[in-house]
Structures are given as C-alpha cells and as structure tokens.
C-alpha cells in the first residue's frame, strides 16, 4: 500500500539525511521506525507527509507518488501544534471544514469522547495539559479517517502513565478504521506495544539497519514473556545499530548473540 522506492534526501547544505530507503508497508499495518538521534526518522516521515520532497527515489501510496500533502494522510506531530485561537472542538474538527456544522460537531464529539476529553469542547488549548493537548491532536488527525496515519514521536514529551493511556486511546481509534500507520519513536517499548513491524535505522546517512516482525496479538500484555522477548530483541538490534557501522539486514539470526 505504501512503498518507499530507493528514497534519499540530501539537504541544501549537503547533509545526507536519508539514503537508499526501501520499505513496503501493507494496508492496515503499524510500522515503527526506531533509531538513534539524527538517523533521519523525522525526515522520512516529513517526506511521506508531503511536507518535503525527496532528492532521489519515490514514495508510492496506492501507486501514486506523494509530492504534496494528501487528504487521506493524517499527521500527528511531536508537539500538539494546536491552533491557540481555536477551541478544542474547532481544533479537533480543523480538517472537517467541508462538512456541515452538525455533522462536524457529531464527529468531533465522538472523537473527543474516545480520547477521554468529553466535555472539553469549549476550552482553549492553553487550559489543557500537555497530554490533553496531544490527545486533541490525535483526535484531529483521526477524525478525518485517513488511510495512512503518520506519527512523529507523538508521546515523547509525556510521562509514562499518560503515554500508556494514550497508547490505549490510539489503538481504540485505530481499531475503528484500521488505517496504515507509520510511527517514529525512540522508545522501544512503545514500538513493541503498538507496531506489527519494527524498522531500526542508522545515522549518517540515515539508512535501514535491520527490521523485525512483532507477531504478538492485540491487546498486548507488557509483562508477558513473549513481549519481553521481542522487546529484548529490538533493544539488541538497536544497540548493534549504534555500534556497527555496516548495515546487516540479512544476518540478523547469527548476529543476535553477539550484540555487545
């Protein structure tokens, strides 16, 4: 459904942010991109969102190249990025301006209920905590029912409890229409909690180091041995990506034991 085809991005100052990215994501799949800082995760997401253009290669969404933001792609940024002059309801319904007011209000109310913000419609963003603001941003992105949802470390600024409850809210909203999700995170546990597949990236230039599947069924129990095993494996891969300079995409099995 979503294909990265030899994608590369070089910035005007010569920084090679991404190089040779090839991934394909199935419809309804949740893909997590993890990696150390500066490995181009956010750049990759901005390219998919159509906010930046790739220097080489293409991104295909249902066989159409992405060159600009699309109506069926939703984005949740690292910060809530609410518009401070709009109420919570108007922020959540920002992408629904083409709908009649009653229909918009119905959808917005429904989305706010599901992120646990029922009754907050008339508040200003400044009256909300950081976690509540991010929940409004989640509602804003999902209320338009995008086919593809992009998330850039959406929970990184929040405390562990808030984060865990937002994972729940997010999965509940995701269940409704099962969009394809590409998320960037530096939190391996978050990746294992949410994703079907975890892609580990490496910096300078940003490239794919390795990827691993997460076959666990939802809802996932963070304390189960299977969850722990996958988390450990993901952490090992991440550690190797930070020490190794050579990508070893196809030697995962033999190198699993020599991660130090």
């Amino acid at each position, binding site marked *: 459904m979503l294909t990265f085809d030899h994608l590369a991005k070089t910035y005007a100052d010569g920084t090679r942010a991404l190089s040779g990215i090839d991934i394909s994501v199935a419809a309804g799949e949740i893909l997590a991109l993890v990696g150390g800082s500066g490995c181009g995760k956010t750049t990759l997401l901005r390219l998919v*969102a*159509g*906010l930046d253009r790739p220097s080489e290669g293409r991104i295909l969404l249902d066989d159409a190249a992405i060159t*600009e*933001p*699309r*109506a069926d*792609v*939703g*984005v949740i*940024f690292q*910060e809530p*990025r609410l*518009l*401070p*002059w*709009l109420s919570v309801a108007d922020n959540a319904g*920002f*992408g629904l*301006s083409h709908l009649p007011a009653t229909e918009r209000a119905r959808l917005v109310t429904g989305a706010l209920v599901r992120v646990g913000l029922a009754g907050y419609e008339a508040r*200003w*963003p*400044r009256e909300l905590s950081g976690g509540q603001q991010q929940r409004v941003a989640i509602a804003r992105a999902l209320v338009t029912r995008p086919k593809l949802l992009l998330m850039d470390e959406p929970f990184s600024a929040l405390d562990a409890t808030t984060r865990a409850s937002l994972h729940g809210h997010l999965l509940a909203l995701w269940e409704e229409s099962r969009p394809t999700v590409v998320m960037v995170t530096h939190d391996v546990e978050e990746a294992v909690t949410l994703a079907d597949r975890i892609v580990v990236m490496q910096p300078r230039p940003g490239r794919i180091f390795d990827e691993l599947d997460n076959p666990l069924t939802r809802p996932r129990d963070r304390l189960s041995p299977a969850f722990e095993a996958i988390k450990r494996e993901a952490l090992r891969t991440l550690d190797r990506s930070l020490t190794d300079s050579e990508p070893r995409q196809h030697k995962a099995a033999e190198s699993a034991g020599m991660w130090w």
Partner: protein
Amino acid sequence: MSTIEIAEAVDETKAAPQARPASRAGLRLAGFLLPVVLAIIWEILVRAGLANGRLMPPPSVVGKTLWQLAVSGELWTHAWATLWRVGAGFGIGAAVGTALGALTGALPLARGLLDPTLQALRAIPSIAWVPLFILWFGIFEASKVALIAVGVFFPVYLGVAAAILSIDRKIVEVGRVFRLSRLAMVRRVLLPAILPDWFTALRGGLGLGFMFVVAAEIMGASEGLGYLLVDGQQLGRPDTIIAAIIAFAVLGKLADGLLLALTRPFLAWQDTARDRL
C-alpha cells in the same frame, strides 16, 4: 509639575505591575501621590506669594481655564477637530500600512521591491514632509491628515511585516497537512496568528498619530487642541497651554483605551500575562 501629571495620566497602567489583587488598587493610587502632592505644594507656594504663578500657573487657575473652555464649548470644538484629523489620518495610515505590510511579509518579490524604499523613507523625520505636503495638499485638512497618515503608516507597516515573517512554521505545517488553499491558509491560520502583533502595531500607530497631530496643528490651524497650544503661547496664557496639554493626555488615553477594548475580545485565547499587567 503638570508634565508629571501628564506622564502619570499616560503611564498609569504601568503603575501597578503584577502585584497581588489586594495591594494592586493601593499601588495604583500610590501613583497619584507624587503629582497631587506637588500640585498642592505649588498651589500653596503661589498663594503665599513665595512663587510667581504667571509662567507656571497653579492647578486652580489651570482648572478654571479648562472649565471655562469646556463651558464655552470651545474645548469640544478643538477636541473634535483634533480627533477627526487623528481618526482620518490613522484610518488611512493603518489601512495602507496593513496592506503593504501584508504584501511585503507574504511575497518575497514584493519585499525585495518595496521594503528597501520604505525603509529609506522611514529614515526621514516625518515632520520634514510638512512643507511638501502643504505645497501638494494646501494648508487645510488634507495636508494635516497626510502627515498623520505618514506617521501612523510606518509602525503599522513594520509591525505587520514582522508579524508575518515570524509566524510559526509548525502552525503553518498544520495548515499544509490539511491541504488548505492559499486563501483558507490566510483566513484560518495566518490572519489569526498575526492578530496580536497587528493590534500592538495599531496601538503604536495611534500613539504616533497623536504626536503628529500636534505638529500639524502647531504649524497652522484655526482650530484643534494644537491650535489652542499656539494660541496660548501667542496670548501669553500658559494656563491655556497646560489645559490643552491635559486635554491631549485625556484624549490620547481614551482613544488607546477604546482601541484596547475593541481588540481584546479577539485575543481571549492568548496565553499571556498581558491582561494582568
């Protein structure tokens, strides 16, 4: 002494910064203490014959003059003439300043073409235009309004252009993600984003408008508070001059307060301490 009163009248909002509500009213009143005490001392000194009240008339004389001007209706005629000029000049200057500021802020081409010239024109003291404006527009209202408009134009132009250039990229990206058209982007994102800065620029422009109306009226008018100043000078009536100065202070303060009251409802969303200052 009277200048202190005027400075006080203009700055009274700053007299009581972020204090606890209980002591805030007290602090505000404290600001009146110094001018009032000085006024009383001056009054006593003049009455006791220890000081000459001719060049610096005591408060009672100024008050009487102000009262007489008000009763005879003269004060209102002058105040109205001044207000009309400021209103017209402010309207024109603010409108043109906003339009050009928006243009140069939004379009790099317009900025490259217009901004250097406008910045150069800004370096000219606005009063220097007066002789030229009199030649162009005559000695009546048009030249005065033009001078005030020029004075108002620059702070508004600079404020709007700077506000547009400093709009947060992150907010604009939200608009891009939702595929807003150019027009929708302006209406739903850019305009609300610059609103607070625009209002601040308008307030600055209004203040300058009052400054330039004095200049315009001093240089030749048959009515207006500035004319009252010149009239007082020529008749040797310092009490008239001070009465006119007080009228200017009150008028300026009221106009600023009105602008503030009109714009405040649009800024209810702001997360700032401005309201409390």
